[in-house]
């Protein structure tokens, strides 16, 4: 294939291992750490099995689970294989998610050596009480330390994950978390509202009345506070939960999800999207190991997205981003008159102050972001 025809795309590698399952988490992961070595081998097998997609990887994201359970050599192995298999560009963004309870200075230096150039640290909170409530395996001090290790190792693109909206959390408590984060000068912040996902231990506890969730109106206030406070401190929102100091320090990889750029996911439960075809892998480590062991692709299901479905996804994904929907691109892509289709919804929401059209872009305001789901569902009703 002619090199210039290759699309730029992302590679996602899922590492489905954790030291302990956190009470709120519904990602696919397990605690059979002894399976890590054979799992790494299976990932290489999957890469080799994966068809020769016309793809030119410019991002590689190793997420989880807890990828930082892997040794630097294992990460090196995966990165090399991926670069090789997917013709990664020399300047590709290579991210790893790190759990502060699993790393030391040496390991992070090893990751840097292996080619990782972006690091996303699962801090969640700088309060030990909150970390305890979330049943994280690390302390606040460990989190701070891991950030310092990352800096010393050479990382100049560091992101931190934080969670807010915990039961009883006040604006002051949350502000303290945010301020600590700001003081550590990361390039990127992800601030997630705590959600109670069905099937998690925390959701079960909530349902059984073990604690009371923070009321939505307070979560909403904290959201509002977050956006304003971070903006005042030089972090700009670019998606509902994501903030960065500059356009460059946005997560290139994650933005691919919101723009239907192609990506290939490896490992159990990972999703891929290539040429409007989405597929996802089996959501079980055993099944994954078995299938790859038999030399078979571990795909569970594939769906071919029609233009209507792509339009639906575009609407709700783009409305989550501050860049919003480019009306011209949208009209061209879907051969549709945006104003005819959505004009009345737009004007209602404009007058409610939740949506605006600026430079031919239709985007939610800060207030609107808080209602992104209901607003995008109204757009979807109109198609």
């Amino acid at each position, binding site marked *: 294939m002619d090199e210039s025809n290759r699309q730029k795309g992302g590679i996602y590698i899922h590492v489905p291992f954790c030291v302990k399952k956190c009470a709120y988490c519904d990602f696919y992961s397990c605690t059979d750490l002894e399976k890590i070595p054979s799992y790494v081998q299976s990932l290489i097998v999957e890469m080799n099995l994966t068809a020769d997609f016309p793809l030119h990887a410019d991002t590689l994201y190793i997420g989880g689970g807890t990828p930082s359970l892997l040794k630097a050599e294992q990460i090196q192995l995966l990165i090399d294989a991926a670069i090789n298999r997917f013709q990664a560009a020399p300047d590709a963004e290579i991210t790893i998610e790190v759990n502060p309870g699993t790393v030391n200075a040496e390991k992070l230096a090893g990751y840097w050596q292996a080619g990782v150039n972006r690091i996303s640290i699962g801090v969640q909170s700088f309060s030990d009480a909150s970390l305890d409530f979330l049943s994280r395996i690390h302390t606040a001090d460990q989190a701070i330390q891991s950030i310092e290790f990352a800096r010393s190792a050479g990382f100049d693109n560091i992101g931190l994950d934080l969670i807010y909206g915990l039961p009883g959390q006040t604006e002051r408590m949350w502000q303290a978390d945010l301020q600590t984060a700001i003081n550590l000068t990361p390039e990127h912040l992800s601030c997630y509202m705590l959600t109670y996902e069905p099937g998690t231990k925390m959701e079960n506890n909530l349902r059984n009345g073990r604690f009371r969730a923070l009321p*939505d109106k307070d979560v909403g206030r904290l959201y509002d506070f977050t956006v304003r406070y971070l903006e005042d401190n030089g972090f700009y929102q670019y998606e509902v939960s994501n903030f960065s100091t500059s356009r460059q320090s946005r997560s290139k990889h994650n933005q691919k999800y919101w723009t239907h750029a192609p990506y290939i996911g490896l490992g159990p439960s990972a999703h891929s999207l290539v040429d409007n075809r989405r597929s996802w892998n089996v959501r079980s480590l055993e099944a994954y190991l078995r299938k790859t062991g038999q030399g078979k692709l571990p795909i569970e299901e594939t769906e071919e997205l029609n233009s209507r479905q792509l339009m639906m996804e575009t609407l709700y994904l783009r409305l989550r981003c501050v860049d919003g929907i480019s009306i011209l691109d949208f009209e061209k892509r879907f051969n549709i008159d945006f104003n005819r289709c959505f004009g009345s919804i737009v004007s209602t929401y404009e007058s409610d102050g939740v949506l605006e059209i600026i430079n031919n872009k239709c985007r939610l305001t800060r207030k609107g972001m808080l209602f992104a789901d209901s607003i995008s*569902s109204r757009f979807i*009703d109109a198609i």
Partner: protein
Amino acid sequence: MRNIRNFSIIAHIDHGKSTLADRLIQTTDLVSDRDFKNQMLDTMDIERERGITIKSQTVCLPYKSSDGKLYSLNLIDTPGHVDFSYEVSRALASCEGALLLVDASQGVEAQTIANLYLAVDHNLEIIPIINKIDLPSAEIEMVREQIEEDLGLDSEAAILCSAKDGIGIDEILEAVVKYLPPPKGDPDAPLEALIFDSHYDPYRGTIIHFRVVQGKIRTGDEIMFMSNKASYTVEEVGIFQIVRVPKPALTAGEVGYVIAGIKTVSDTKCGDTITLKKNPCRKSLPGFKETQPVVFSSIYPVSTDDYPELVIAMEKLKLNDASLVFQKDSSAALGFGFRCGFLGLLHLEVVQERLEREYGLSLIITAPSVEYEIEMNDGTAMMIDNPALYPEPTKIANTKEPYIKASIIIPDRYMGQVMNLALERRGINTDYQYFSSNRMEMIFELPLAEVVYDFYDKLKTVTQGYGSFDYEMLDYRDSDLVRVDILVNGDRVDALSQLVHKDKAVQRAKFACEKLRDEIPRQMFKIALQGAIGSQIIARKTINAFRKDVTAKCYGGDISRKRKLLEKQKKGKKRMKMVGEVMIPQSAFLAVLKSKD
């Protein structure tokens, strides 16, 4: 003629009428056992399920009696519900006798008595039958006593029967031959035939069920309806023996059908007299009246796209249901639909169920209303059943509403509760009488509007299922009527307006607001729900805005799942109605209009 017997089975609902009819058919070899479907006479699914006969069916049973002669026993099945009492009376008018069936474990109930009165009015010979004697809870002696004392019949003559186990069936057939009189009538007199039912056949059009009282009817005759002088040529006459069996002619005393190229059942009227155009009878048979709908409601498709299908379904239903009347209606909230008139609540429910089940439509039915008489200040008067047409209150001089006379039979320990229920429904207790063994009949005069509003259910509840109920229309009386409107964020939802008595307005308005609050999903803004009479707010509830509605995380693995959810929601919203900016789900309309509290 001496070998003909025309009879009906009359009973309170569930006392075993259909089961007995099946047994009688079975023993007379009309169908082989293999073909025998239980409850042959109840044909519609809904009737089967609810065990209520709505369309009566007739069957001519050939029977060889112990006297060695062959008889034709015409069993005329009657509708089993108060809504259809006129149809019952026409069926009884076609008979010389009736089997009065009483459940041995339940005893005499309201419809037993109401039906007995009807039978007596028609001078029918009555054979009492005590059914379900197989039940361990059967109290045969007690029921005998009730038959003797409450009904004034000779309980010695009562036949003991178990329709289920086939006990007493031969005895019943012999008694029909022996005790019921044969029909009288002059085969050479001008034709007089009584229409007691009709149904629609897709190939033959309307099939009239009738009894020849005088004269003779043959294929080729030109017949005429006495009520409207419409005339038709007879294509076929015959008798019902599960299937239609054509005959060259039917003569005085016989029961059967006539097919005469009549397009819809609405062109025939139950109770009308058929005669011959060339040689007409002098006057109609007595007792004819046009049935009037008493309960009115609008029917809308949940999805406005389904309106054309509703039109087709209504037209098809009408073919078979002469009592169903309707006209086009439209609502700002619900789009196009039909305003319909029904004989009663059960009739309404049956129509609704058939539309939903047989035609696959999902519907919104507005609150049932009765017909009010409204006198205007300028002296004119009008009948109104539709809240949408309710005039400006300042122009109204007086309103009247229909009253019924209700008979309720209960074990006397429930007297207090029933009295309270009736009083709460603005009823007046005009009379009561004690029957044997602690049972009593209470007579109330009640506004019909209060009965269409979940009265049956309430009665069943307060009497733990022991109360039975029957009613007849009485008259129109002064009423204090208001129209209660429901406003959603200030917009009136026309389909939720109701005409109610002033004393009930606050209660209804509150009920509606509460139901809406429970059913309408939160939205981005606060939703005010109000009940109002004109500009006066009499009830209010608020649905608070939600404070956030956004998924925190949305990455590669979440996108498909989220889209599927949105696709599902989008589908669900087809069942929603927009009122201003507020989305109201179908379930909200149903909850409000169900009117159960």
